[in-house]
């Protein structure tokens, strides 16, 4: 830089100060609140900007997002702050900025919802456009020159911020969103440092949305994210906007509760503290919580969650992004079951005395008693049942232990009498959860995905919305949150479709990507083999299984199911429980206890004092999913791991350790002493359970199965889940879930 340019800059600066002083003389009554002083004089700012400072190196995309070009010719080039980026046609300006690594402030825009463009926070400057444009709603055009960091853009944001804060209460110290609030963060980053507002703020009546979502509607900034979420993703028209201008309110038009099974997600998407979690209200501040990235076990989807804990207590559960499983949503059961982890817990080993009461004993005594009884009964009278929340490691240990004791009667609840475990494709969601989105015809057989696997249902709904997929449903009357055709209630309809006489058969046959989803509730039926073979006939004749598309799916119900079938937990005989003398329940609470002979010795190992405990002779306390490391396979065969977030309760132990210890007391030492050793053992049985976070699709389709000729039973299909909110020992112990079932399920 030469001397000449320096002097010229100095001159300009002098000129600008003169300009400024004259201005302030003239308008000395106007209080200026603009915190960026160079804005006061655009001429001087422009003059100062002329000697361009060297550009900083380009930034990587926000969140390291990758751009997918569906069609290479459709790429267009735009310039963001002087850098050129290539984006596919149809991208908005905001998305183009994200690709260029510039995060645009926003409130109403959400990548998974439709565009509303009503908060105006995302204003940017575009060359040759007279005014700043709302980047979230403006499509990027070839050669567009976008400027995100100019004085005009900054001033625009500052102005929008001022309007938003005008009617926003100064609640932050008592607001649950404090610390994770978009409005808080963005007003720090882009807002003005003083306010000019002296009138009264408006106030809005709070709405009652039920036991899960707390509302403080005065805080709402009318971004309408919650309204769009409810109608687009959750599929309930519960929320809407009333009134206009400063009288605008979010609410349910008539007094009613929010009845969606995904309602908890509005807590996450609300950018301010208008919608917060009712059970979490005033319980903790988010910066004192420890987050642990884990897996949900309340259904077979295996949603990715973050367990937020403080000390030994789970404070809340929030979703974690996983595009292949749950996107960024979770169901209400997943989110709010956590208070069940604190109630009804078993904390000491206990033995039932002769008076019928439980007495706490030491681990040594409890294990000695069990080992003694086990050696007294015949090997074939030993039966083991794994519960629906069991992890793969403990099921492996249980199977090995009972086999060493000479028994092969071991299964996992929910799998029915003689599950089909030989072919993985026979019990998995072969299409994959994410790929269900691309299907265009669905045939749901005896399954109500809305209550069985809410996240899978959200995918089906997405397919119905975006590709107008047709849904046919066979089963009892139900309420799905998309249009469907109720074809029938029982297996006869299925037979008609298989014979091709039903009109829906042609729909499947002509579809590009047909998906048949069979509910795992059918596993409990006597005629399940016959039904499954009919389904296979349909699949074969309608060409549902192709090399590039496997549309024959089974939707499982429980977290443990897929792993148990992978490990081969199949009982030797159907009637083993009726002749059992020794029954080992590993967290199994839904076994029909009436069938157990009265002289049988029942051991219950688990974390909750639930149904299994009533009949137990010995109780062994175990750790819950939030307290242990365990592998779970979800319904599409994806192995994922839970991570311990909090310490175990009382004197409880991890499931696999209990079985390992018991095996030693019983004199049949299992050969593993650590979780790593157990996994090595699993590698020899089901190596797919060790490839973490990866979906191992079933290699083989169903075509060489032996033909089974069995009569079908014309009894209509039954709903497999009575109460969405209470399906396992944790949710049954939860107070919040009990409130939900009493308030939200009443018809």
């Amino acid at each position, binding site marked *: 830089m030469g001397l000449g340019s320096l002097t010229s800059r100095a001159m300009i600066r002098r000129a600008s100060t003169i300009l400024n002083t004259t201005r302030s003389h003239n308008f000395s009554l106007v209080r200026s609140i603009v915190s960026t002083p160079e804005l006061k004089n655009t001429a001087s700012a422009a003059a100062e900007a002329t000697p361009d400072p060297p550009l900083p190196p380009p930034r990587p995309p926000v969140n390291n997002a990758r751009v997918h070009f569906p069609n290479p010719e459709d790429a267009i080039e735009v310039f963001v702050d002087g850098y050129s980026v290539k984006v596919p046609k149809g991208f908005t300006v905001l998305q183009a900025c994200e690709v260029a690594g510039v995060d645009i402030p926003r409130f109403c825009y959400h990548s998974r919802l439709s565009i509303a463009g009503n908060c105006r926070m995302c204003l940017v400057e575009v060359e040759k456009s007279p005014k700043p444009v709302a980047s979230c709603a403006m499509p990027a055009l070839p050669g567009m020159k976008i400027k995100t960091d100019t004085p005009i853009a900054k001033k625009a944001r500052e102005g929008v911020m001022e309007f938003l804060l005008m009617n926003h209460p100064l609640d932050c110290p008592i607001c649950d969103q404090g610390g994770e609030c978009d409005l808080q963060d963005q007003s720090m980053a882009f807002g003005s440092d003083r306010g000019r507002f002296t009138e009264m703020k408006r106030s809005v009546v709070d709405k009652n949305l039920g036991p899960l979502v707390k509302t403080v509607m005065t805080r709402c900034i009318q971004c309408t994210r919650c309204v769009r979420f409810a109608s687009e993703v959750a599929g309930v028209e519960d929320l809407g906007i009333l009134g206009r201008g400063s009288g605008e309110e979010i609410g349910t038009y008539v007094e009613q509760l929010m009845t969606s099974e995904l309602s908890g997600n509005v807590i996450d998407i609300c950018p301010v503290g208008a919608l917060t979690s009712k059970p979490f209200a005033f319980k903790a501040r988010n910066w004192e919580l420890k987050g642990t990235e884990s897996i949900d076990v309340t259904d077979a989807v295996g949603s990715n969650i973050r367990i937020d804990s403080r000390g030994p207590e789970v404070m809340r559960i929030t979703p974690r992004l996983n595009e292949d499983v749950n996107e960024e949503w979770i169901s209400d059961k997943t989110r709010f079951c956590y208070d069940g982890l604190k109630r009804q817990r078993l904390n000491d080993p206990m033995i039932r005395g002769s008076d019928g009461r439980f007495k706490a004993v030491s*681990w040594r005594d409890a294990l000695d008693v069990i080992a003694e009884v086990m050696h007294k009964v015949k090997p074939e009278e030993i039966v083991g049942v794994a519960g629906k929340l069991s992890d793969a490691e403990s099921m492996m240990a249980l199977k090995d232990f009972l086999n060493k004791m000479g028994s092969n009667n071991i299964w996992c609840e929910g799998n029915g009498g003689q599950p089909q475990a030989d072919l993985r494709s026979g019990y998995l969601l072969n299409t994959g959860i994410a790929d269900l989105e691309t299907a265009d015809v669905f045939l749901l057989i005896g399954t109500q995905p809305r209550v069985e696997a809410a996240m899978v249902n959200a995918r089906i709904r997405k397919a119905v919305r975006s590709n107008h997929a047709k849904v046919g449903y066979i089963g009892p009357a139900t309420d799905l949150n998309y249009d469907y055709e109720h074809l029938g209630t029982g297996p006869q309809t299925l037979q008609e479709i298989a014979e091709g006489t039903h009109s829906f058969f042609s729909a499947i046959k002509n579809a590009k990507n047909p998906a048949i989803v069979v509910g795992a509730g059918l596993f409990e039926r006597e005629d399940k083999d016959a039904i499954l073979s009919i389904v296979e006939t349909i699949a074969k004749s309608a060409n549902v299984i192709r090399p590039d598309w496997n549309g024959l799916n089974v939707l499982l119900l429980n977290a443990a199911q897929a792993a148990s079938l992978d490990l081969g937990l199949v009982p030797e005989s159907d009637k083993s429980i009726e002749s059992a003398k020794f029954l080992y329940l590993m967290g199994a609470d839904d076994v029909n206890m009436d069938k157990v002979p009265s002289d049988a010795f029942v051991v219950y190992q688990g974390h909750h004092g639930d149904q299994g405990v009533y009949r137990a002779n010995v109780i062994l306390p175990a*750790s819950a999913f939030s307290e242990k490391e365990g592998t779970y396979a979800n319904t599409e065969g994806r192995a994922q791991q839970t991570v311990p977030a909090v310490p*175990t309760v009382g004197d*409880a132990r991890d499931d696999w*350790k209990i079985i*390992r*210890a018991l095996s*030693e007391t019983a004199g049949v030492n299992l050969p593993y*002493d650590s979780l790593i050793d157990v996994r090595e053992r699993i590698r020899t049985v089901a190596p797919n359970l060790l490839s973490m976070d990866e979906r191992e699709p079933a290699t083989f389709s169903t075509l060489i199965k032996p033909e089974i000729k069995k009569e079908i039973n014309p009894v209509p299909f039954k709903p497999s889940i009575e109460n969405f909110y209470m399906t396992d020992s944790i949710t049954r112990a939860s107070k919040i879930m009990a409130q939900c079932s009493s308030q939200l399920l009443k018809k």
Partner: protein
Amino acid sequence: MAAVWRAKVPPNSANLEEARKRVFDFFKLACRSLPKVMDIYNLDDVATISQLRSTIASQLRKNAHIKDPKVIDMLIFKGMEELENIVEHSKQRHHMIGQYVVGHHGLVQEMGTKEQGLSPFLKNFYKSNYL
């Protein structure tokens, strides 16, 4: 500490015989206050009066070998002090349970010979989940 200030130090025992008599008096006094102790510390569900009585007796017997009257006087003084603290509710329930109900061996039962032959895994398992 109030009890200490109020405590009158009796004149020393002249001989072993007198000291011995004082020990018995102290034992009787302690036993008579047991119903009250049971009551104020709510010990009914963890101990009985006879259990506590034998705990007191065993504590006295621990010093049975002492023959010096001066030392016996001192021990009685300390015992008196402790008794007053207890009766005045200067202690709390868990002190009582810890010192007189569970005793010095604590909650961990000595495994002794039973431990032999167990694998390290099982030994750790009996101790805690996190070993």
